[in-house]
């Protein structure tokens, strides 16, 4: 079996790590200054950054479970990057703190200051109270934490095995765990995305919301991983591991998730459009007006049509640099998508703008950079801790061979 120590992450990652912390730190200070003047807007911009970057981390948990469930060479070569992504959970909890404080002190979620006689508030009772909202977040983090702890522990155990039989036993344990856990994961994603994003507008509901996030976060995760792989593929040790076919396989998965995103979004739209009930259509009508309308059309074109047509081509998927550029493009569009969900729900009416009118604050640029810098700093640190590939996995050699194949 291959020696895991030959697959340590390149030392350059240390430099990226410092850079990420520097950028994240400076942006956080700027954000704090902004928060002093406009706390609600700063919190919404922080939420934008949080849901985007933490989403990559949550997506890593889901995809890690998925690759244990279905197997395949693509899962073996990205497993350690996914694991490093899942181990960002502590910093995600840290990044959640401003939101937890904000929900108590400020009204960036409209339900925190709706009158208790409001119909939905009466119906939902204790569920829509700030303290229970925070307790629920703690439960989500705890459940995800158990998954992250166990999967990472087993993977570390696998590096210590000396025979294929031992290594196979560890893999079987992780695979058996992943089946039922995938169900739990999707349920937690549903509850979390409803709490953190859907409840921005207390009067609007969507039953496909959780799936939109399960798929969207998996898409973010795959795009992030492909970008990481493309950077690492030039350097030792990954230059000896990765092949065209790995990028081809990951490209197919990105194509599938781009289609799933469009499918879920269109399903949500079509059902509401068909029903044509005022309580439901308002949310979409706001997003079709003015500046939001342009973003909506932009999302159809650049979150679906453009990546879809590009990814249909085989040669494109096999070229690591091209697919990485597209992956970064999709990540940028994912951020726009999150902005499109948060922005119009913005209930702050301080500058005389009509409720739901198009507005973008400079803090919407600072927030994601601040959260992203800190998240990436932690991620690179985790990436350095362990070898970049599960070298003792029984399928490791086969996975390398697969990548070199035609």
């Amino acid at each position, binding site marked *: 079996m291959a020696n895991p120590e030959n697959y340590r992450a390149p030392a350059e990652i240390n430099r990226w790590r410092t850079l990420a912390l520097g950028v994240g730190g400076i942006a956080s200070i700027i954000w704090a200054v902004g928060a002093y003047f406009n706390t609600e807007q700063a919190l919404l911009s922080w939420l934008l950054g949080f849901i985007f970057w933490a989403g990559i981390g949550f997506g890593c948990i889901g995809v890690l479970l998925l690759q244990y469930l279905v197997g395949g060479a693509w899962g073996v070569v990205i497993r350690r990057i996914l694991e490093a992504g899942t181990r960002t959970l502590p910093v995600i909890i840290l990044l959640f703190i401003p939101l937890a404080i904000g929900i108590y002190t400020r009204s960036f979620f409209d339900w925190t200051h709706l009158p208790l006689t409001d119909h939905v508030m009466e119906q939902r009772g204790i569920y829509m109270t700030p303290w229970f909202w925070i307790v629920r977040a703690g439960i989500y983090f705890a459940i995800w934490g158990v998954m992250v702890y166990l999967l990472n522990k087993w993977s570390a155990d696998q590096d210590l095995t000396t025979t294929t039989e031992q290594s196979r036993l560890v893999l079987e344990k992780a695979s058996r765990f992943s089946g039922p856990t995938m169900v739990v994961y999707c349920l937690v994603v549903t509850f979390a995305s409803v709490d953190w994003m859907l409840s921005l507008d207390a009067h609007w509901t969507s039953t496909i919301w959780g799936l939109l996030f399960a798929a969207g976060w998996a898409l973010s995760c795959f795009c992030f991983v492909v970008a990481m792989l493309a950077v690492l593929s030039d350097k030792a040790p990954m230059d000896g591991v990765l092949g065209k076919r790995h990028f081809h396989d990951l490209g197919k998965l990105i194509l599938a998730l781009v289609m799933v995103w469009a499918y879920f979004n*269109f399903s949500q*739209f*079509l059902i509401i*459009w*068909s029903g*044509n009930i005022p309580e439901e259509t308002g949310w979409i009508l706001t997003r079709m007006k003015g500046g939001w309308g342009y973003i909506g059309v932009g999302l159809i074109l650049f979150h679906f049509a453009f990546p879809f047509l590009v990814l249909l081509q*085989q040669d494109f998927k096999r070229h690591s640099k091209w697919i990485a550029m597209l992956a970064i493009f999709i990540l940028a569009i994912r951020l726009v998508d999150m902005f499109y969900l948060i922005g119009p729900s913005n209930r702050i009416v301080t500058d005389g703008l009509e409720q739901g009118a198009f507005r973008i604050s400079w803090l919407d640029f600072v927030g994601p950079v601040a959260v992203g810098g800190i998240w990436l700093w932690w991620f690179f640190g985790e990436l350095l801790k362990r070898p970049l590939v599960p070298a003792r996995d029984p399928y490791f050699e086969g996975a390398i061979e697969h990548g070199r*194949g*035609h």
Partner: protein
Amino acid sequence: MEHKLHGIMAEFDTPTQLVDAARRARDEGYVKTDAFSPFPLHEIDEALGIKRSILPYLIFAGGITGLVSGLGLTYFVHVIDWPIIVGGRPAFSLPAFIPPMFELTILFAAFVAVFGMLFLNGLPAPYHPVFNVPRFALATREKFFLIIESADPKYDYAETRRFMESLDAQEVFDVED
């Protein structure tokens, strides 16, 4: 050997031998070649110099045709032939048309994929000369075969047969047409 042959076939024990032989046949300049194996060999396309199929482009064209047909069908029915007001919406309501358009895209693309594949492979083929070699039945079990067809421009019975015998083959057969 007076009557016309379909080609000359060589039998191999391992996939590696087959791929090596295919590569040598290509280097020798043979183009009307084919290889048979009990399981897919990814290297064989490259070894035989087989070009990529045009099928993906046909499927894409089929999908576009389906999309346009879907739009045409829904537009004809709801706008031209029998407009009915449903829920106060205009006759031309694109969101409602998208599901049929999507379904027809899939349907046409799938039809082109299946029937295009059959057509490009020359299927169904009720008769194929390779089955005139009795041992060829083993191609579905454990043996690997390479054939050079007599239609090949470089084909010359004596020389091609000598070439085939120079390969690492178990046995070389004449394939009756």
